[in-house]
């Protein structure tokens, strides 16, 4: 089922949280809403499932305008951030709740609950109550409850936020597998970029109530539309260096770093900002830059370094854990200039 938001606006009283957002999600596609806390991700999700009324614009499921359809009739499955399991019901009753509300026969409910419980691997927990489950198990129950009535749309609000690293990894692929198997249209809200990149067909990055860019994960990683997007994707994050460019040559104000850029930034002297991802600043890079190591973080297979330029601006570097550089050491690593991202004063990509 295709989802279409047309000039969707949401305000609480006088505070406009989302202003004229347009978003199209194709049938069977999984899209991530990624953005900092408070940018309006949950608000968008709640509008899609009908918990919040839209203040303006339209929401379409397929060709049907559902803007004023109550959430009871939208047939949307939602996994809430807090799971929102009914504490007084068993796992089986929780999963079967939407079917029970629809007054399906007990036999049907039992069969469907068993099926979906198998799918999310909780078949052995059906008689427990939510309080007797671990976080990951609760999360799967919530997922099963959202899926059991074959919803047209699946909405996931930070479903993995409460899980430990290992379980998070497991559930990522599991949710993606189920979404693929069922062919359901899904929206995943998250502020974890790894989650968004690994699980979704496309990512919509939001900031302050608007979508700043929507694209496929790698496309967005390689071609961010703004420094905000570039800063949001990538772990460890991209480093920015401010300076001026004249005739294709970039220099910071103090002259601590100068590089010649391979692309034409115009004749005129102008302020720009360079974005350098950690993997493109390393020993053996094309254009050397001098700095001093201020921070070393061993991550096992790789090591992360912070390198301070003379004027205090920081570059980051990630390297396989063979280099034995230590804090305080002066280094002269190089930048792969072809991979530098360039932004204008307002942050727009050049």
């Amino acid at each position, binding site marked *: 089922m295709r989802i279409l938001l047309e000039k969707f606006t949401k305000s609480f009283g006088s505070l406009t949280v989302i202003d004229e957002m347009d978003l199209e999600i194709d049938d069977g596609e999984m899209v991530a809403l990624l953005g900092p806390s408070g940018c309006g991700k949950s608000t968008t999700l*709640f509008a899609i499932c009908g918990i919040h009324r839209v203040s303006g614009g339209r929401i379409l499921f397929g060709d049907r305008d559902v803007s004023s359809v109550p959430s009871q009739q939208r047939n949307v499955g939602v996994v809430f951030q807090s799971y929102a399991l009914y504490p*007084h019901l068993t796992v089986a009753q929780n999963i079967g709740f939407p079917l029970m509300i629809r007054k399906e026969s007990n036999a049907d409910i039992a069969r469907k609950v068993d099926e979906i419980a198998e799918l999310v691997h909780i078949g052995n927990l059906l008689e427990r109550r939510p309080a007797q489950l671990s976080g990951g198990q609760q999360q799967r129950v919530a997922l099963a409850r959202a899926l059991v009535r074959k919803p047209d749309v699946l909405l996931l609000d930070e479903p993995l936020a409460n899980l430990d690293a290992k379980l998070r990894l497991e559930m990522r692929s599991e949710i993606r597998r189920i979404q693929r198997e069922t062919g359901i249209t899904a929206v995943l809200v998250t502020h974890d970029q790894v989650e968004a990149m690994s699980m979704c067909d496309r990512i919509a990055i939001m900031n302050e109530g608007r979508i700043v860019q929507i694209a496929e994960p790698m496309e967005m990683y390689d071609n961010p539309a703004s420094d905000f997007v570039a800063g949001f994707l990538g772990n460890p994050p991209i480093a920015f260096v401010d300076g001026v460019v004249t005739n294709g040559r970039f220099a910071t104000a103090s002259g601590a770093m100068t590089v010649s850029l391979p692309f034409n930034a115009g004749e005129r002297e102008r302020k720009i900002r360079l974005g350098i991802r950690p993997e493109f600043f390393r020993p053996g890079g094309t254009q050397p830059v001098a700095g001093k190591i201020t921070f070393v973080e061993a991550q096992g297979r790789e090591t992360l370094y912070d390198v301070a330029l003379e004027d205090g601006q920081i570059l980051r570097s990630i390297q396989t854990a063979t280099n034995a550089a230590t804090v305080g050491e002066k280094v002269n690593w190089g930048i792969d200039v072809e991979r530098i991202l360039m932004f204008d004063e307002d942050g727009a990509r050049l």
Partner: protein
Amino acid sequence: MLRASPDGEAMSGSRILGLLLLAPAFVFVVLFFLAPVVLTAVFALTNMSTATGITGGAYQVTQSAMRELGERHGEQALADALARVRYTVDPAGIDAATAEGASTALVSELDRKLAGESFDSRRELERAIKALDNRPRGTRALKSLSALFERSIVNTRFATEEEFFGAVAGLGIELNATQRAALLATTYTGWTWTSENFSRMFSLPDTKRTFLNTIIYVFATLIVFNTGFALVLSIVTHYMPDRPAGIFRAIWLLPRISPPVLYVLLWKWLAWDTGFLSRILVPLGFESRNWMLDNPTNAWVFIVLINGFVGASMGMLIFSAAIKSIPVSLFYASEVDGANRWQQVRYVILPQLRWPILFITCYQSLSLLTSFEYILLATEGGPGGATKVWALAAYLTALNNYAGNLEYGYGAALALVLVVVGVILSLAYLRLFDFKSLVAPPPIEQ
């Protein structure tokens, strides 16, 4: 929690300190909670009343005592003998004659010839006096003299047993052992130990009526208002916007915080023959009447309303708080799961309110059982005892009787029944709530 400490001395020191700190609480508990119960139990085993007083009594031959002596002890002859008036020439009478101004000659002759003599009737005494040498002149003088020797123990109070038996002997009545016992039992005016209160309670038809009234009162008020209506109010206000919901709740708190006398007066004014209801209904062709006391059904409706409007507020507050504490995401989840309002109430709210509902039911049943102030103010148990509940009956019997004879003993026996029922219910409820902590299993960690 107190931990066992390896240092025994410090342990006993802290224990003594703990006991010291608890001592005032202990004194208050004994004084204000335990003592009334014990006293009630003690009173319940006596026949104390206004007539007996609550201190000791005296011995007195009264009309009712003599009737009882005849009817209950089969001593009619003795009763008649005691009740009879006699004329005895005793030193007291002779002294009285002197004081009345009888001549010394007459007095000394009386003393000499008639002292100690006893006559069954006045005529016989007067005949004997007339036979004296110094007899008084004139019928008037004779009459006033003979009156001085009239002797009866009827209605005379004797402080001690000896005095009483002395007086009886003075009447020339010989008593055997059973007669003495019967006489003491019937003429004693103070209170005595007895279990009669209870046998009386179980035999009186009034008791059954009062018992049924109490059940109607407690359950009707509890189910309709204290739990039922409170639930409706809390659920309705839950679905209202915050501000009107707050105002609405505040309105329902008003009866609770208004002075009971004024509050009930408003209801009475509503129901009076010339009150608000009549003002509206009379023009519609209804007869003017006191709507509250017109018939038992009306009285009950009013009693339940009056108590219910007051009682609903507590449940409303508790339930509202409990609903507030349900995570809002559960409401969201049930909405997207397709539940309409009613299904939300049925499947999300009510199951979460199970313990608050049970708590309110238990707590309010106890407080309703012992409360009667609104009934007292509104109907005084009327019409014709139709709304007299147990606690009110105890109060009226022991402390505020129309007849004026306050039966402390019987009233205490009635109250004791309430205490016993209350204690049994409390224990049952406590078990029920403790049970809760037993049935909630600890979460199983993976």
